[in-house]
């Protein structure tokens, strides 16, 4: 196909109730290239592409010159007029595969919904599913019966069914684990070359944009602050925002590892843990050890058993066999992925933290100490959880976990929901706590790159087993297990898929 779409937008501005979200953007596509739009959350990258499809929130007021294939198009067109652009000209894959599909409708019917009327009778759903690497029987399934990766493939298939000439992937892989992420990105690459269409990838991960895109646009605070060939932008960044994004990326950095403390004073030891749920073995002969003031990482894909392990270690779930010994005097505390649901929205942060101190029998004047340790800004004390950002909430959750002066802090995907820059700030705080409070940390994550920054020792889990363990340095630089190698390669976004296809046939 050679009917390349041309898109041009000049001086694009978007205002929401007086605030200017986009501050004059010029942007052009006229070849079949792949473009990465990168920026921190809130930089306006999603707003920008959504304004090209008329999918802005009701309150948003867009302005500027917009041309599709040389024809002027009004940015404030009616819903009916936008239907000519959406689907047939521009297709979009949105972030969260868990919510992008109608939960009450079978996948096949949802894909078929977008097919232009004239082509509906000749459209073959099973070959559309085959194109995205799914078996034909997925057509008869509901979204909840599929894994995240499979759902994202259905979403891609549904987006392609409208036969777009430009595909936009808005953080399309952020919610998936690293190996699935890589597979989905490979799929998008394959589709792009098969359909011969331009692609826009929106991401906060500049490393991803570097390996997947020809050109990178960096956005900050509603403006494009830098653009150019991917290689140039990432290797010789000029704008501050670009430098921050690169600094935040742990794989673009030469890094030093946290010290491993193996053989020291053992704080927690789990021996031969086994746990089954029906026919599924969640833990098989798992042995784990955490020493005092050490950070130990546990990494694995979803379903590898890492959360079950955390639950067994804290006694929330009882293992079928094996034993857990805790040698500390004080408690074990857990910090979860999303603290929002565990912070009572009706109370102020001060109340929440004081309540935690009271519950653990500590004097209230320790409030100062825990907020300074967790680096919770003082002015947040009088606010309520809803008005805090994700990173601030996570700091409050950490401060609360510190109230009973625990010996061990278990962080279960504690930074996964945050953007990279904020992730790094939280990780630094945790590392400081480890040093200053002699706090041991067990960090559970699907993202190896997080562990590279914080963990001294790493356990790699797959299908309920610990497949490899050792110091972080050895794991990252001389992994022996195939699965570990695949995880490392996937998190570093190596350009071509090698072992991955064979390793996870289930997706």
């Amino acid at each position: 196909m050679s009917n390349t779409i041309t898109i041009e937008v000049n001086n694009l501005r978007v205002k929401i109730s007086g605030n200017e979200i986009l501050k004059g953007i010029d942007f052009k596509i006229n070849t079949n290239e792949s473009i990465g739009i990168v920026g921190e959350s809130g930089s306006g990258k999603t707003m920008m592409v959504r304004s090209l499809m008329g999918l802005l929130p009701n309150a948003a007021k867009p302005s500027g010159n917009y041309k599709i294939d040389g024809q002027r198009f009004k940015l404030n067109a009616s819903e009916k007029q936008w239907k000519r652009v959406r689907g047939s000209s521009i297709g979009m894959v949105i972030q969260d595969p868990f919510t992008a599909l109608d939960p009450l409708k079978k996948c096949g019917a949802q894909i078929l919904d977008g097919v232009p009327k004239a082509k509906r009778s000749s459209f073959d759903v099973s070959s559309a599913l085959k194109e995205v690497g799914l078996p034909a029987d997925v057509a008869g399934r509901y979204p909840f019966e599929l894994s995240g990766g499979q759902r994202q493939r259905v979403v891609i298939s549904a987006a392609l069914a409208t036969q777009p000439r430009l595909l936009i992937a808005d953080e399309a892989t952020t919610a998936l684990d690293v190996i699935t992420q890589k597979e989905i990105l490979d799929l998008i690459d394959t589709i792009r070359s098969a359909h011969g269409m331009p692609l826009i990838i929106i991401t906060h991960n500049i490393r991803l944009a570097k390996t997947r895109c020809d050109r990178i646009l960096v956005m900050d605070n509603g403006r494009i602050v830098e653009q150019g060939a991917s290689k140039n932008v990432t290797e010789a960044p000029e704008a501050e925002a670009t430098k921050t994004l690169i600094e935040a990326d742990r794989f673009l950095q030469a890094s030093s590892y946290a010290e491993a403390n193996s053989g020291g004073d053992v704080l927690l030891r789990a021996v031969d843990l086994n746990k089954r749920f029906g026919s599924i073995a969640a833990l098989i002969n798992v042995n784990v050890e955490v020493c005092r003031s050490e950070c130990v990482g546990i990494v694995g894909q979803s379903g590898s058993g890492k959360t079950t392990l955390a639950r067994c270690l804290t006694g929330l779930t009882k293992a079928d066999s094996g034993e857990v010994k805790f040698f500390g005097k004080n408690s074990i505390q857990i910090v979860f992925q999303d603290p929002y649901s565990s912070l009572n929205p009706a109370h102020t942060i001060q109340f929440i933290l004081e309540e935690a101190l009271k519950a653990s029998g500590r004097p209230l004047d320790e409030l100062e100490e825990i907020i300074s340790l967790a680096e919770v800004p003082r002015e947040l004390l009088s606010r309520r959880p809803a008005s805090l950002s994700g990173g601030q909430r996570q700091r409050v959750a950490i401060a609360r976990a510190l109230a009973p002066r625990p010996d061990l802090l278990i962080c279960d995907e504690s930074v996964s929901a945050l953007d990279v820059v904020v992730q790094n700030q939280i990780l630094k705080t945790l590392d400081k706590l480890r040093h200053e409070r002699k706090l041991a940390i067990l960090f559970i994550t699907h993202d190896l790159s997080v562990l590279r920054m914080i963990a001294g020792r790493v356990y790699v889990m797959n299908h309920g087993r610990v497949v490899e363990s050792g110091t972080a340095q050895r794991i990252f630089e001389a992994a022996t297990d195939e699965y570990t190698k695949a995880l490392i390669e996937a998190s570093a976004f190596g350009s071509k898929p090698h072992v991955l296809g064979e390793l996870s046939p289930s997706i």
Partner: protein
Amino acid sequence: MLTSKLKYIFTRLLECLVSLVFLSFIIFSLLYLAPGDPAKSLVGVKHATPELLAKIHAQYHLDDPFLSQYGRWVKNALSLDFGNSIKAGYPVVDYVAPHAAITFELVGLTLLLSVIIGVWLGVVSARNKGKILDKAIDLSSLAGTSMPGFALGLVLLYVFSYQLGIFPMYGIGDKSNPLDVLWHLTLPAITLTIGDAAMLIKITRSAMLKEVSGDYTVFMRARALPTSKIIRAQLKNASPPILTSTGLFLASLFGANVLVENVFSIPGLGQLLTSSVTFGDVPVVQFIALMLAVLICLTSALVDILVYLLNPNTHQLSQSTKI
């Protein structure tokens, strides 16, 4: 999958049956809750001679043990025999039926109007969130919920019947002419509808707001799917609270219409119930109470089953294991 569906439906209906057994026991006990000899209640306003009382005792088996009386009452009730009305002197079922027909018609009409208006305006309101239309609908639904039905009925009666003469003042008109009955029931139905529709607007709006801003809505719009298709998907996802509250409205309507029937002088169940309670016509009160209990229990079971069947996820909950 099919068996788990059937199992749910069976369990839900069984629950319904259990609560009906419990309710029927209380309803039967009504006869004994009135002070004094139940036979005296059954005699009514006639002079209670000892002979008459003895006759009543024998006729109603009042000297049998309580439980066996209950058993006999249930057995008769199953064959729709609730004895004779004390006031009318002929079988309760025949006495109540014409009144019930009118009320069912009124309640049915009200429910139909409430659902159409409430769901429609709720959807419009949610899809136009923050705009003037949304605010206007919100304000009028607030007015609707806070207006007492009987007061509203009087106002409507004054404006539309007395001043404008569009609708009749009272009664149900010519029973043999369904159109005439409908014409007579329109104003009372509107009176009852306004409160319920206003509440349904609020419930539909808040259930729809979540769907309107949901990711799948954005994705459907991004694929240029027809608006009607998008609304259908949103409504289906938002339906559980709407269906549940509609079921509850049905129950509350039978209570609310007592006053409205009085305002419009409609000889329905409400009027019959008030006069029967005043008169002490226990068999009639028992029959009406049991009939409403059956109706409400069945409706709420049906609503639950419908909500369950709508969501494919719930059918399999028992089978999926979470790690």
